[in-house]
């Protein structure tokens, strides 16, 4: 009964969003406000209409309604209530529904909040965003419907999935479900997927406004950028959080001691993040200088198309095998829609090319403007390298018939130098003034961070004779770090001398008065910390594997692991646990007892490795139980000594903090924030 209500609601939602799409574009085209208002109401109604199927699915997952094929697939009696609810996005059907619902909700919020302000753009904002929503709701309804039931047709060996009872069939009600993939049964399930989806879907808002601005010719004014600035940051920070949580989850669960494996699914998420970051920066150029308007358009089109592409890769598995493409109608449908979105928006951009002229010209090659162009190009180059490496196996298979793998060595070697250049630019560019900068004053601003970082790198290099690239990398992060901190120092000093404030008040007011600028610096600080963690992971990782008997010791990187005993016991969620009790010591005294585990999920016949980790700001000792002999007298361990890895997570938190400061609403100054301010042009050092 409930499932039928969900299905009916879903169908009405589809009809309404289809109606909203066409009514809005008709109203906008003919200038009929009534049609636009009607489209708006329909679009707003889609939100509750999609909420009903979401609630029905969650309720069915929670109450084990195994007559639904989706519930049978991802829920089981052994799973905790928390996981049963999170299973909403644990499989294809549910996650596409969740996606459509999020997108509809975003559109709804925008229609409520911006309705009065951006009347001219609204018809086309509704058109573009509801077109995408219609596509996703259509996919849920017609291709991966979560309300399919299981039926047993007489004489058939396998069960049939269908919405309505096929002829000569009996409804089939399984005793228990398969449950989520054991790897997904983790606390990370509540963080990574929803934040990623929020990031992916959030970009629909700036995209819809950009398209609306182009269609109406309003792109001459840059209103759309101002309207969607917060939305862009919102989508961007959630995508960032999704990336970091995904890395953390992989580190905790996948059992290979790392957080980023350059897997196609990971790359699919990184690409819109890269172009989105470039977009965030080029938008600043438009706000401050009225330049790079064409870039903004191209970048938001690219970002949004890559978000769709990311969903496409994740949901169809097309990269690992071409054959996954046409298995369901999902692959071709997605492919056609991405192509339509991408080419369609490029065509609109081409037709409106002349509305996007630069308002100022470049005065010097040493200027913030030049730095912005360079960084955008670097971001695009990294995006291309990642894209190319991700799709190349597919191209190779189609062209030559040979399957190949493009693994981490390719990505490290190709994107490494580009990322290096980007981080370096992040240190220098904020010191470069808008319009033009005399080389001498730039030198003045840069010499101290430069000298300090050289000193740090030299001392460190002398004491740790490691790979030369590692010393170079540490110099880089030290340089950028001190350059950013020097900016804060200068600001605080200025306030102290002119206003007589104590350092803490000065810092507080400095950030408060110019929260966009200093929020941005704090985000940069987070990026540097993440870069530090990545460098640690790339150059200082040590690992060993060995089999030891009880009382014996395995050592690596100055740490010793002693194997004491092996325990076996049943755990929750239908798993059998084998746990090794070990003690970790560092040249003598025991510092921590570690219990690396191996959880065997009996029904799924799948083992999951749960590492024992000793974590400090400098180093993580990550111990995995690989195997054991039958008596439990000896066991095989793998130990990773991961230097600096914690700075990746710390950097992530700093980034979130910086974004919160940058988007902080300042009611008093709200109206003037977006106006081209003469003082912005001159206030830089």
């Amino acid at each position: 009964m409930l499932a039928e209500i969900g299905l009916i609601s879903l169908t009405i939602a589809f009809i309404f969003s289809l109606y909203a799409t066409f009514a809005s574009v008709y109203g906008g085209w003919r200038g009929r406000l009534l049609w636009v208002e009607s489209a708006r109401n329909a679009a707003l109604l889609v939100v509750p209409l999609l909420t009903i199927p979401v609630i029905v699915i969650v309720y069915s997952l929670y109450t084990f309604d195994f007559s639904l094929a989706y519930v049978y697939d991802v829920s089981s009696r052994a799973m905790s209530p928390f996981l049963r609810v999170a299973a909403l996005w644990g499989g294809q059907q549910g996650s596409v529904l969740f996606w459509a619902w999020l997108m509809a909700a975003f559109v709804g919020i925008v229609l409520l909040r911006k309705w009065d302000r951006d009347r001219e753009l609204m018809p086309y904002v509704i058109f573009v965003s509801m077109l995408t929503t219609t596509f996703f709701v259509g996919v849920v309804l017609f291709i991966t419907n979560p309300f399919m039931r299981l039926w047993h047709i007489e004489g058939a060996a396998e069960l049939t999935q269908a919405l309505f009872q096929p002829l000569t069939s009996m409804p089939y009600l399984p005793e228990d479900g398969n449950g989520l993939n054991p790897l997904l049964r983790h606390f990370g399930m509540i963080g990574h997927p929803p934040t990623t989806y929020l990031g992916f879907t959030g970009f629909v808002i700036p995209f819809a406004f950009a398209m609306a601005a182009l269609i109406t010719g309003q792109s001459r004014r840059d209103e759309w950028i101002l309207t969607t600035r917060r939305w862009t940051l919102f989508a961007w920070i959630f995508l960032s959080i999704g990336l970091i949580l995904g890395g953390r989850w992989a580190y905790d669960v996948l059992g290979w001691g790392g957080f980023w494996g350059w897997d196609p699914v990971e790359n699919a998420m990184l690409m819109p993040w890269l172009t989105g970051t470039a977009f965030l920066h080029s938008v600043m150029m438009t706000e401050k200088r009225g330049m790079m308007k064409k870039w903004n358009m191209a970048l938001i089109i690219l970002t949004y198309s890559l978000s769709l592409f990311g969903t496409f890769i994740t949901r169809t598995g097309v990269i690992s095998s071409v054959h996954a493409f046409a298995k369901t109608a999902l692959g071709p449908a997605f492919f056609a829609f991405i192509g339509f979105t991408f080419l369609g928006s490029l065509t609109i951009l081409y037709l409106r090319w002349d509305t996007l002229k630069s308002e100022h010209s470049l005065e010097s090659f040493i200027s913030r403007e030049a730095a912005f162009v360079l960084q955008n190009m670097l971001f695009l180059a990294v995006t291309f390298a990642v894209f190319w490496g991700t799709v190349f196996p597919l191209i190779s298979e189609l062209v030559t018939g040979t399957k190949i793998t493009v693994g981490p060595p390719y990505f490290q070697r190709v994107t490494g130098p580009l990322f290096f250049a980007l981080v370096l630019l992040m240190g220098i560019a904020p010191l470069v003034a808008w319009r033009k900068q005399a080389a001498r004053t730039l030198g003045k601003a840069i010499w101290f961070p430069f000298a300090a970082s050289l000193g740090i790198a030299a001392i460190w290099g002398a004491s740790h004779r490691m790979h030369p690239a590692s010393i170079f990398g540490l110099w880089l992060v030290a340089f950028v770090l001190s350059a950013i901190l020097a900016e804060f120092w200068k600001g605080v000093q200025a306030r102290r001398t002119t206003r007589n404030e104590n350092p803490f008040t000065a810092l507080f007011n400095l950030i408060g008065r110019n929260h966009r600028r200093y929020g941005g610096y704090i985000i940069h600080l987070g990026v540097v910390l993440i870069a530090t963690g990545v460098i640690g992971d790339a150059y200082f990782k040590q690992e060993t594997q060995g089999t030891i008997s009880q009382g014996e010791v395995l050592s690596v990187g100055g740490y010793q692991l002693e194997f004491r005993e092996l325990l076996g016991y049943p755990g929750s969620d239908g798993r059998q646990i084998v746990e090794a009790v070990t003690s970790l010591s560092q040249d003598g005294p025991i510092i921590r007892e570690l219990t690396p585990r191996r959880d065997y999920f009996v029904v799924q016949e799948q083992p999951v490795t749960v590492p024992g980790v000793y974590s400090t700001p400098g180093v993580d000792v990550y111990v995995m139980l690989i195997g054991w002999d039958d008596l439990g007298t000896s066991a095989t361990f793998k130990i990773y000594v991961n230097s600096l890895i914690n700075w990746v997570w710390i950097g992530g938190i700093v980034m979130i903090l910086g974004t919160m400061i940058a988007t902080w609403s300042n009611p008093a100054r709200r109206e003037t924030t977006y106006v081209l301010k003469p003082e912005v042009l001159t206030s830089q050092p």
Partner: protein
Amino acid sequence: MQNMKRKFILLLSIILASFFAVSVVSAQDGQPGDPTDNDVIRVAKQLYCPVCPNTPLDVCETKACEDWRAQIRDQLSQGWTDQQIIDYFVTQYGERVLAEPQRKGFTSLVWFLPLVVVLIGIGIVFEILKSWRKQKTVTTAASPAPEISKDLLEKIEREIRELG
């Protein structure tokens, strides 16, 4: 003094021992012996699981991969070099087992094209900056032109007054 000397000897022996350890490891390369887990991992790291999608062979959990790792161990103990084992895997299971794509044939495109794109990108950046410099002043409504004309207006008015 005696203590210092003893410490020095200790230090020296540690250093020597570490050199020796290094030479032992390199001597194992390509010579029959008892390969350790770390030797197997060193080779497996450069390979991908031939059957599962996108899983490096050194961390792959499947039974098949366990067997392949055992095979690498056998081959190492028979005195195969790392490269011989890798080549063997490529002939057996195809190019897809290589973590690092080859630099020959069609596959070399994967390395080559990003480089070309970066070079083109640098060229484009330069061209954009140059073209921006050329278009001297594109005056539009939003440029802060009014301020200048106001000053100019005042100046002209003053001059007119002075003339008069």
